């Protein structure tokens, strides 16, 4: 699975950066940037929970 981010939906709450600073950052404009999209097998639940915290629903998991 891979993390997909939609900057068009992002509103810069920063929940993803708080949850996994090794995976997410914010651009100069304050919008989400995925540093590493790969979700290791067995880690899907953890990342679904992280993605679920995003208030603007800008993040998803893709096969």
């Amino acid at each position, binding site marked *: 699975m891979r993390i997909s981010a939609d900057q068009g939906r992002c*509103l*810069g*709450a*920063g929940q993803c*950066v*708080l949850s996994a600073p090794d995976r997410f950052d*914010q651009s100069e404009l*304050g919008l989400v940037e995925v540093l590493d999209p790969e979700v290791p097998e067995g880690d899907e639940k953890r990342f679904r929970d992280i993605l679920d915290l995003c208030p603007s*629903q800008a993040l998803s998991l893709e096969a």
Partner: protein
Amino acid sequence: MTLLPEYPQARGCPFQPASGYADYEPVSKVRLYNGREVWAVTGHAEARQVLLDPGTYSSDRVHPHYPALAPRFESARKVRNFIGMDPPEHTVQRRMLLSSFTVKKTNALRPRIQTLVDGLIDEIEAKGPVADLVPDFALPVPSIVICELLGVPYADHAFFEHQSRRVVTGSTTLEESADAFAQLKAYLDDLIQRKQREPGDGLLDTLIAEQVGTGGLTRAELVDIALLLLVAGHETTASAIALGVVTLLEHPDQLAALRSDPRLLPTAVEELLRFMAIADGIARFATADADLAGHRVRAGDGVVVVIATANRDGEAFPSPAAFAVDRGARHHVSFGHGVHQCIGQNLARAEMEIALGTLFRRLPGLRLARDLADLPIKEAGGVQGVWELPVTW
């Protein structure tokens, strides 16, 4: 005929939801101060459903269907900024501010916040007990930080803190809140005009250069944005710091756990946010008919999302009434959810972590100088917390 239960209701304990909310159904009709009947949404899943759907549940404060939870909300209709707008209008304004509120930018403020907090505790120690932590600590921390961030002179703090308090207090009358909003607007308009002549280096100066100068915002629009950032930037966090002290002192086992492992500070702050629910509820109105937990909400209906109960929903938080500094749950709705989730939330987290962590480290004998039951509780319909916090150590 039985009257519907009222919303909002006053808290009997400053960190517990009003006891009357226990009688609400997950989604049910309640009565506001002005007699209007609106839907109260108390469950966590239902709260998220409403807050994630701005297309159905509007935040447009100017619209007559937007419910006033207290008289002050009627005055707030004259202040127009992104908190009271729907996408796409909301999105445009919010994005103008995002770069100043990233996790990196707020973390960069931590050393400054630490210096500030240490200085205030030095003064408290020098004066000796008893100290009232509201004016001596909880209020100046966020107030100074938001002033420096925006470029508002802290020398004016007595004025804007007083007027902000009149704006956010549940018992404020229509006339009082209208006057307070007008005074804050006049003050900020004057400040922005001065900044147009003599630019500084705050966020307001950036917005003047980048937005007012280029036609992105009118000066009047910037005044209303500045008003939101200034008021929300200090009143809520001040309440959260003061009530956080009370909540930790009233849960000595949890305070001891935090003291024995300061790495718990971020999760302890998150748990305080969930448990205290400083913003008791959030209003919306339906723009179309919708189904909500088996109820038919009609276009035009008012909705209040009860944050205080959504955060205590056992489906979302096991043992929801327990205050547990190691809970590690961030899906509370204390900052709201959806596109309006608090833009300053990471600044609030930083301020709470540094203020509470440092206070309990430096004053290990800290205790209330008055019984919990005798602390004056902020009124229903406004930011929740305590008006005074006398402590000794």
